[in-house]
């Protein structure tokens, strides 16, 4: 039986050496869709690098078996989606809402939701401009963000199979992403648009209007929830038409299962962020948070992986051991990194991420289980990061700043991004009480020594 070694972050070659100690029976133990023939996914990073995920040569990874499982499972997602299709499952593309439509889709038998827009990461993991170049060729301007790689993926159909049905958010959603989806529609993909209301403040002078409250205490007009309920019911009806079934009890079960994921992730985050020594790396933590969106296309296996990670993290916390020095500088990270290497670099240069705002707050929120399910989904979604004011978005980070948990904030700002680029400046203003470093994330392979020097100087200044 493989025994975890003293925690540390290791490179690809070290993982290959360590992998020699993993037994054949352990490799066969972990499989997606519980399939023995093609469902095995426990491979070292080198395997995925050989197939073109080039950044794995540079990244450092946690050295636990739980982390190996995490990476094997997530890098296997593209294959998993094709295997899902081959084995008769339906592929449900959910786009833009980040976290809610998949909960509905999972209430239908053999329906596998995923996010085509997560192709956003691919140019970085592959250190490749293949998708971005193709997107330009297809007519997306370079001034749109990395999400344009999704359009190229729709064109190529080599990263995920053609979905059986597609839902895409619009309204209070990102404009870059919406434009890309419109172009996908022009390519011949049939989209079911889902309108997302803007979460504005409930007006105190209009007291007759019923209001509701987000988890963080923000009051908004309750009719927004009602609006979303109707939108989700439309999704439900489309799914019923697709599958010929529809059982609301299954929606309750799906909510319950997704909540199990969310609770586990919240526990892992709490353990990681509050421990004296960082027990798990920021990069793996980001992958864990994003798993809340759809369980990486096999939520049952993902749940099992999360349990293993939680055990690993809890064990390390109890022993007071971890992967960073105890004097690492506590930081908050706002907006996902796009380039995963940045998280490695910040840790290597002495930082430690103890709070995050990766624009997926809605997927971290526990869905109420004792009210009508569509209402519960709508209420949880009203916590979404991107549908309200910037102040709301960073309220939690500001709270951590005030309580002295955070020494500085890093904001990543995507090249070509029109939506969050504007917001970066606003966030800087809202977080006046703490030093902020805004990083313009360059195109793949674009991280320069100059950028590293800026990060070093920022962390040294905080120290």
């Amino acid at each position, binding site marked *: 039986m493989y025994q975890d070694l003293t925690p540390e972050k290791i490179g*690809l*070659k070290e993982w*290959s050496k360590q*992998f020699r100690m993993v037994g*054949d029976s352990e*490799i066969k133990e972990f499989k997606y869709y519980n399939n023995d023939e*093609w469902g*095995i*996914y426990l*491979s*070292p990073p*080198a*395997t995925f*690098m*050989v*197939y*073109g995920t*080039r950044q794995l*040569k540079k990244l450092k990874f946690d050295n636990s078996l739980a982390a190996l499982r995490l990476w094997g499972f997530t890098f296997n997602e*593209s*294959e998993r989606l*094709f*295997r899902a299709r*081959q084995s008769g499952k339906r592929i449900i593309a959910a786009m833009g809402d980040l976290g809610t439509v998949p909960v509905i889709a999972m209430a239908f038998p053999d329906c596998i939701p995923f996010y085509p827009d997560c192709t956003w990461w691919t140019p970085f993991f*592959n*250190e*490749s401009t*293949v998708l971005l170049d193709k997107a330009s060729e297809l007519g997306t301007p370079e001034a749109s963000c990395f999400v344009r790689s999704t359009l190229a993926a729709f*064109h*190529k159909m*080599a*990263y995920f*199979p053609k979905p059986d049905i597609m839902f895409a958010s619009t309204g209070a959603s990102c404009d870059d992403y919406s434009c890309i989806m419109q172009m996908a529609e022009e390519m011949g993909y049939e989209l079911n648009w889902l309108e997302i209301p803007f979460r504005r403040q409930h007006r105190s002078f209009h007291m007759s209007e019923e209001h509701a409250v987000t988890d963080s205490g923000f009051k908004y007009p309750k009719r927004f929830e009602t609006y979303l309920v109707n939108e989700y019911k439309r999704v439900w009806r489309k799914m019923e038409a697709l599958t010929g079934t529809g059982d609301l009890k299954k929606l309750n079960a799906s909510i319950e299962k997704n909540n199990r994921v969310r609770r586990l992730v919240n526990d892992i985050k709490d353990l990681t962020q509050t421990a004296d020594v960082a027990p798990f790396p920021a990069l793996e933590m980001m992958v864990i948070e994003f798993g809340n969106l759809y369980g990486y296309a096999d939520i049952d296996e993902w749940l099992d992986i999360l349990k293993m990670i939680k055990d690993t993290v809890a064990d390390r916390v109890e022993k007071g051991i971890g992967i960073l020095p105890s004097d690492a500088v506590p930081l908050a990270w706002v907006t996902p990194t796009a380039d995963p290497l940045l998280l490695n670099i910040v840790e290597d240069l002495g930082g430690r991420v103890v709070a995050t705002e990766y624009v997926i707050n809605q997927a971290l929120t526990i869905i109420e289980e004792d009210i009508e399910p569509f209402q519960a989904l709508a209420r949880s979604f009203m916590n979404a990061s991107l549908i309200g004011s910037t102040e709301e978005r960073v309220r939690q980070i500001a709270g951590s700043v005030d309580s002295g948990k955070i020494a500085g904030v890093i904001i990543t700002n995507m090249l070509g991004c029109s939506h969050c680029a504007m917001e970066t400046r606003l966030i800087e203003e809202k977080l006046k009480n703490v030093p902020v470093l805004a990083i313009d994330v360059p195109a793949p392979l674009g991280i320069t020594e100059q950028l590293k020097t800026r990060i070093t100087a920022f962390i040294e200044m905080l120290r």
Partner: protein
Amino acid sequence: MNDILTSRERFGLLVIDEKPDRCNIMPLITSHAATVKGMKVRDYYTNGENMARAQIAAIDKYEHDAISIFSEVGIIAEAMGSEFEYPENDLPIQRTPALEKKDIEEIKIPSPTCDARLPVYLEAIEYAYDALGDRVPILTYIPAPFTTAMMLSDPNKFLIQTIKESSRVESIVDRSLAAAIELCYHVIDAGGLPIIVDPLASSSVVSPKTYRQYALPSERKLVDFLHRYDLDVILHICGDTSPILDVLPQTHADLISIDRVNMQQAIDKLSSAVRIIGNYDTSRLAFSTPDDIKAEVRNMVEGALHAKQGYIAATGCEVPIKAPEENVMAFVDSVKEVGWYWV
């Protein structure tokens, strides 16, 4: 039609049982790449950067679907002590097999980072991977244990030993297997996808019985080792393999590359178990005309394109070093005319 996918994407779909835009085209362009680059053959196989640059030049010219890091099957044996000469414009020639000077126990498992020309291969993989590893698979040919075992020995003596001294042959093959595995560790970490080549296990060289007794078990062990990494394993055996076609799936290889075998027979016997690669006659590539090549390749591809588990259009053996470039181009062009799945 124009390509929709990159070579990397195309191969990626094939190995998960999906039909790509068109069939993969992987003629075994190995040392022929030196000719394309206008480089002396010796400069190709003694310098990793040269090997990679020549391979990249060949990809630029022919636009086929794989880099092939390879020169000849003696590389592991050389690193284990067999001696070779390096002619300026030809492949290395074996002078003294290691077992003519040492006993098997004295032969060490070579270090791929420092012994003989193994570092040349690793350097070539790294260079090619950095240059175009995001769009083209970097196939790296690993001599199989049986072939290395024969390259460590005087071939005539070795063949007699296969009949009279089986335990000795087994121990040479075992040691060669350990060396192949050690090389694979490094090849994988550099970004290369190992492809196992076992030309001396061909039925043109040894009997089916000898193949089953020594070569097949060692091929299977090497394939099983690579399967621990969840890699898709190609096994290439040159020459005639008709007498052993039935047992080739027992190697556990995912893709089998054939040479002098009737393609229809191979499809009948193998295609429900493995993907088939092959098998255009390389002597035709050397001596025929582009028009004839186009017609013959078209026939080959039309017959094999819909093999059940998938098909890769390739040459049966290495493209001859001096094959006319217009002939190689005719091969590739012809597959691109008829090898489409997406229409």
